[in-house]
């Protein structure tokens, strides 16, 4: 644990050194989130939305979505796939007495913290401008909410690590990432709340892990989940962490036997 913490501290230095890069990522995230938010605000203002939804509700949803996208979602697949597997950077990790999975997890965390700080700051600014109040969850649900948020991060990270592994076989997997990104955007609630989906799409979304990476935690932060629903959501997250984690181990073992270090 101590050595992972040391890596975590080194990664903090890396984040601090790359402040401008992190700011650009944050701006991009804002742009994507707010463009959809603007669509919904225009629709609500033109009274063309079926069902009852108000502008403050949708603003709050997308602001929390920005927080979830920046803090809970992992973006590790590009580094693992391109720099480590494709270009041979993995070799040095195989020689170290550490788990590659947990190394990546702990060095990714400071980036999430930086994103979290910026999204909380923007949340405060926007809530001040647009008079949006954050619903305060009941005290009894706070520990469960925190657990839910931590397991969201672990689930998203495990999924992204698993997503990088086909690179062992196909070398260039950016098209796969693009396909999966589109699926995540739709099925996790980034495009619109899953409750707005037709019934069949909602059922499909809840049968996949993506809803538990974004939509369920956002709903929990909004205070729209009962204690039982939060427990169910947490249970589903643990289930998907187990499924994806075991699949990761299996695929990693198969993939590593095919790996060829490049440039050595």
């Amino acid at each position, binding site marked *: 644990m101590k050595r992972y913490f040391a890596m975590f501290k080194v990664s903090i230095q890396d984040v601090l050194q*790359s402040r*401008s*890069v992190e700011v*650009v*990522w944050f*701006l*991009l995230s804002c*742009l*994507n989130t707010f*463009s959809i938010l*603007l*669509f*919904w*605000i*225009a*629709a609500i203002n*033109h009274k*063309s*939305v*079926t*069902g009852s939804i108000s502008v403050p509700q949708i603003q709050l949803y997308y602001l929390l979505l920005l927080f979830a996208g920046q803090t809970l979602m992992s973006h590790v697949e590009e580094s693992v796939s391109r720099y480590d597997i494709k270009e041979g950077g993995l070799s040095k990790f195989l020689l170290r007495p550490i788990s590659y999975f947990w190394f990546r997890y702990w060095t990714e965390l400071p980036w999430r913290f930086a994103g979290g700080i910026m999204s909380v700051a923007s949340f405060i600014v926007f809530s001040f401008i647009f008079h949006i109040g954050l619903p305060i969850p009941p005290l009894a649900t706070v520990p469960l909410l925190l657990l839910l948020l931590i397991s969201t991060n672990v689930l998203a990270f495990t999924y992204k690590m698993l997503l990088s592994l086909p690179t062992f076989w*196909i*070398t*260039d997997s*950016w*098209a796969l990432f*693009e*396909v999966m990104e*589109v699926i995540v*955007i*739709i099925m996790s609630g980034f*495009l*619109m709340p899953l409750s*707005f*989906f*037709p019934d069949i*799409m909602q059922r499909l979304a809840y049968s996949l892990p993506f809803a538990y990476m974004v939509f369920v935690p956002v709903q929990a932060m909004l205070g729209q989940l009962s204690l039982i629903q939060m427990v169910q959501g947490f249970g589903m997250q643990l289930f998907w962490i187990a499924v994806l984690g075991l699949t990761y181990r299996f695929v990693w073992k198969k993939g590593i036997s095919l790996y060829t270090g490049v440039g050595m």
Partner: protein
Amino acid sequence: MFRYFKLYQQFVRINWKLLFAYRASLLNHVVNSLTWSGFLFISVLLLTNKVSSIAGWDRNALLLLAGMYNLVMGIYHSIFAKSLHGMAEIVLYGKLDAYLLKPFDSQFHLSLREVNIPGFLRCVIGIIMVAVLAPQNHIVLTVSTLVLFLLTLTISVVFLYSSWFSTLTLLIWFPRMDNLIDLMYGTSGLGRYPKEVIAPFHGTFMFFLLLPFFLVVSIPTKVLLDSANYLEIGLLSLLAVFFLFFSRYFWKFALRSYSGGSV
């Protein structure tokens, strides 16, 4: 001029050969084009499941806008985006020296050396979407509409190129900011939405900054729908011309600060 035309022909020829040399890459590009075109279509269907219309844009018009987005971005990505994508690496690793020493214009070389031939698939998908949706949107294509449509399409692509190149010129000073290109992809993505969605920001700095990116797709679409606003066409044309000259000047200015990494 003729020399540059011949040079571009050579770029196309090289890219055509590369296309078939790396067939997996070709497959990746085809999958990518199909994915994002499909995403646009599905996202409009999902969004309009709850929203009947936005400021006069109903489901059919929004689908037409999505088709037009595919066409505009297909053209832009095929001709320019792939070349600009590699700019960060070229500047960071000092490879720009090689471009500056060639006996032709560095901006031309950097902007047009890579042609994304499979990207034209997205244009084809866009044209098919527009053709299929034309009757539902009561589009009557006359010669004057077609001329104005092609003109606005060209203006949009010129604006996209010049704004991207101007922004990416910042890499000369900040070479590690390789994600500026992602920011430009995101900014150009605003064209998926009708410009009316930006109304809440009216009169603010944000409005003037983002408005042109909302116009690049909605203007050619409105020309087809016969509801073009000539003031908007004029504004986008002015911005396209301004940014085209600005990108040139800014690039020349930036090169004075380039120190070279491989010397």
